[in-house]
């Protein structure tokens, strides 16, 4: 039988571990994104934003 204390402190522990994991994941993810963007810059160049022309 899981005690209420285990529920409470276990839940908090999982929260903390998950939050820390999430932070690490997102940091790694964004580093990867930056690397990919550099790769894209080499592969596709800088793609200009297209402004819609007004109807004449």
């Amino acid at each position: 039988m899981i005690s209420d204390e285990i529920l409470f402190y276990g839940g908090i522990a999982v929260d903390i571990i998950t939050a820390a994991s999430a932070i690490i994941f997102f940091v790694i993810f964004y580093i990867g994104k930056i690397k990919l963007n550099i790769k894209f810059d080499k592969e596709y160049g800088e793609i200009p934003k297209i402004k819609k022309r007004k109807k004449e």
Partner: protein
Amino acid sequence: MPEIIAGTYELLNKIGAGGGGVVYLANHMRLGKKVVLKADKRKITTRPEILRREVDALKDLNHTYIPQVYDFFIEGDTVYTVIDYIDGESMDKPLKRNERFTQPQVIKWAIQLLEALCYLHNPVHGTPPRGIVHSDIKPANIMLTTQNDIRLIDFNIALALGEENVVGLSAGYASPEHYGLDFSTDTTFTNGTNSKSYTKKETVKGNLKEDKTETMADLTATMDKEKVIMSMKPSEMSNSSTSLKRIVIPDARSDIYSLGATLYHFLSGKRPAKRALDVVPLSEKEFSPLIVKIISKAMNPNPDLRYQTAEEMLYDFTHLRENDPRTKKRKKIFIGMSIAFSVVIVSSTFISFVGLKRMEALQKALTFAEASQNALQSENKELAVKCALEALPEENLFTPKYTSQAKKALADSLGLYDLSDGYKISHMLEIPSEVFKIKLSPSGKTGAVVYSFSLALFDTETGKITDELPIVKSALSDVKFIDDNTIVYAGEEGITMYDNKEHKKIWTGKPATHIAVSADGQTVAGIYRDDDFAVIYDCKGNEKSIVSFNGSKQRVAENDTFADPMDNIMALNKNGQYLAVSFENGGLRIFDTTNPENDIELYDESEFNHFEGGFNGDYFAFSATKEGLSAFDVIDIAKLEEVGGFNLDSKIGVKADENGIFLSNKSTVVALEPLSGKQTELAYADSYVKCFSSDNGNTIAVTEKNEYLFYDSSADLITRHNEGQTEYSFVDIAGDCAVVTGRDTPNIKILHKKSYEDKSICSYDKSYAYEEARVNEAEERLMLFSINGFRIYDFDNNLIKEVSIPDPQKIYDQQYSKKSGNLAVIYKDAFRLYSGITGECLFEKTDLKSVTYANYGVSILDSENNLQLIDLDTAEILESGKAKGDYALYCGFIADKDFLGDSQVIGASKTSKGYVFASVNNNICTVYDGEKRKKCEIPISDKWEAFFTDNAIILSPLHGTPIVYDLNSGKKIAELEKDAYLTYVTQIDDYIISQYVSSTKDKYAVLLSKDTFEPLAYLPSLTDISEGELVFDYHKGELRKIRIYPINELINIAKEGDNY
């Protein structure tokens, strides 16, 4: 000398020449701007709309990547078109030089071209508005500026969308439609390429002509069967040899094909195959798969499977990063992980929240359970039940299971397991301020309480106030009951008679604080504070007379808010003729309200400062008290003589009315027979009695210990209440009701006499001295036993047998067998077994080496070392055998010296799982089963006794707290009652009952949870368990039985409220 055309354009140099004409770089002389002057080689006799085609196409256009047209004129035989000069070169030139372009460069130009195409195709140009198809997009028609941007040029064969006219054909760049091929019904090009034709991988080499646009006019002669003249009529089309040949009007999708082919060339450096079906897709290893895919789609032979608009293609080019598989894969991972993290965090937060809420609920439940126990100690039963219910909220996700503390609080507060007769608290009434006086009606159904400064009437059954009446602002304010429904009280406007049934005043007289009412209810007397006269009324409120005290006054403090109304006597006799009044000067007089000449002066003046007393028939009984002396006298009013009296050095309390004359002194309360002087004891307390009340044989006495004690007509103490904090000053008892309160508390305890005779199962002579009362399993016999002997009663309350036990001082233990009712008497060296039915001795053996009791039989070891196990119910020998040493017992096997060594057995039992016993050696308790297997070891440090349940061993020290251990693991489970000696442990269904003897020799038991051994209910005076029910013995001559209430039933009883 430079040539000047049309007087405006100064030709600077020739920058190109072809089939269409010559192109010059010219200077616009007026604007000073460089322009391109295109001299058309066609004759001016050519249809003007053909000559003006480019001008007409460009004149309405204004776009960054499309040149602006400035002028169109004819000079001589030549048609000139003036357009923007673009500083750079056409893209075919670097291609011819075999220059290769990077993918990012091509993407940039593709976007610029597509922007231009979007603009061109947009149906907004000219009048009426229309879109324009370039129709000849190819590297040669794309200028690369020095800024590395592109411009789309050469609109010579541009068409309005939907226009059927001359079409340019640039091999490799022209769409199948340009050749009149229609693949629109072929759905095999779904991936943008033609799988059918890749077997013939043909790249365009020398078979293709130069990058030259051929107009339809040029091509008429050379066109093969794949080429269709766009101007062919449908009738002519039907004669074509191939079904693919259709009249096809180039549209935006044709430009898209051409653009795709151009980009293909830019990237690969190779012109695409002339036949669309032969085009080899770009390598995905060499170029980004997405780019390959876009170009393949743009070059799909089936126009329906190409990009349908330039916008679509532009979108794909501008969203290369977003649509890249790597981006999509990362996006999927990102979303997946985000969802996973979110789900985990939300779940764990929810779980944590649930845990927190459950912990809070548990803490709340424990707090309420404690509050309930505190309220119960304060004898506030209603609050105790209320708190206990709060401690037992309905179980759900956020609320844990009922705690044992809460269960115990509810069971204890309901008091269902207290079957003793006596006065039990039924209500706690709280009034706004401290009490001045309290009275009960003759039947005890109504109570009246005086406080500052109101009179409250309350119903003792419900504990609710029914009336609140204003009174004189004095602590002396009095109230008297005439009958259950009528009171006389010191009303704010004057002495008032009030009908508390109809809730209305009957009459009001002059102001009064002290009030006396005659026993017949016909006469009322009132004195206001320290007035020297009393007003006498009849029962209708008429003034009968005024009794003058001749200047004497009752004892009244200056500030009568703090006056003690009990210091004075003011009483009327039964018919209201005589009025007894004490005075502050120590005087005591009996006034004849009808004839002042018959007044009786008991004390003219004295040092007594406290008087108590009243009339009983013709007798006036009183006590007069001063420091160190209290005088009691009884006066016969009719004979005008003293019939008795005495002096004591301690205060004598006197209450006299038509119920009798009652005296209290020190710790005793007695009833006095005035004529004979006979005293009948009503109460005998263990400390001085402060105040008392007696009615119909029931007496309540408050002692200096702040206990209030109830005695029955035999002066037997029936109920003891010891709340310990409140100083009780006022008590009254009437009928089955009693009220108790103090000067310093606003709380009034209302008690009712309760009897549980209906729970009685058998009776006995309560004068017989015994230690324990037990009933056998069949409920046929009751046995009362002690070391001296026993008595057996049947359940018809007949004494069956009284037996004396020999050598009582040598008795080591006595054990009762529930099944048969037999009594085992165990000596150190002898064993006797007595029948629980007849009382005869069933087994007797002396000169034994050892005698050991267990619930499955008694093991005796004789001097010949024969071990026998004697059945407690039949006295038969169950097991026998030889044993070694001076001690042995049977526990599934013969445990003798060989097995035990120096160990000492401290308990043995047969549970539902078999034999089990515990032995101790070197402070280690070892538990074995009947197969000699060791179950667990428990370190101990004292002399212990062992009790067993199915799953636990309870080790009880001689001095200390019994501890429960798991039978298999030896792990500690719980601690039991402190400061009490454990005598029995019994298992019933889901409960364990532990029985104790307290340090004050009181016997009680605690109902425990079977698994956790947590207490569930306090069971005072429990003596036995019969048929799964609890049997209580209050040493009052009968045993009472009640079942164990499950917690849900207790909750229902508590919620119903009035049933407990």
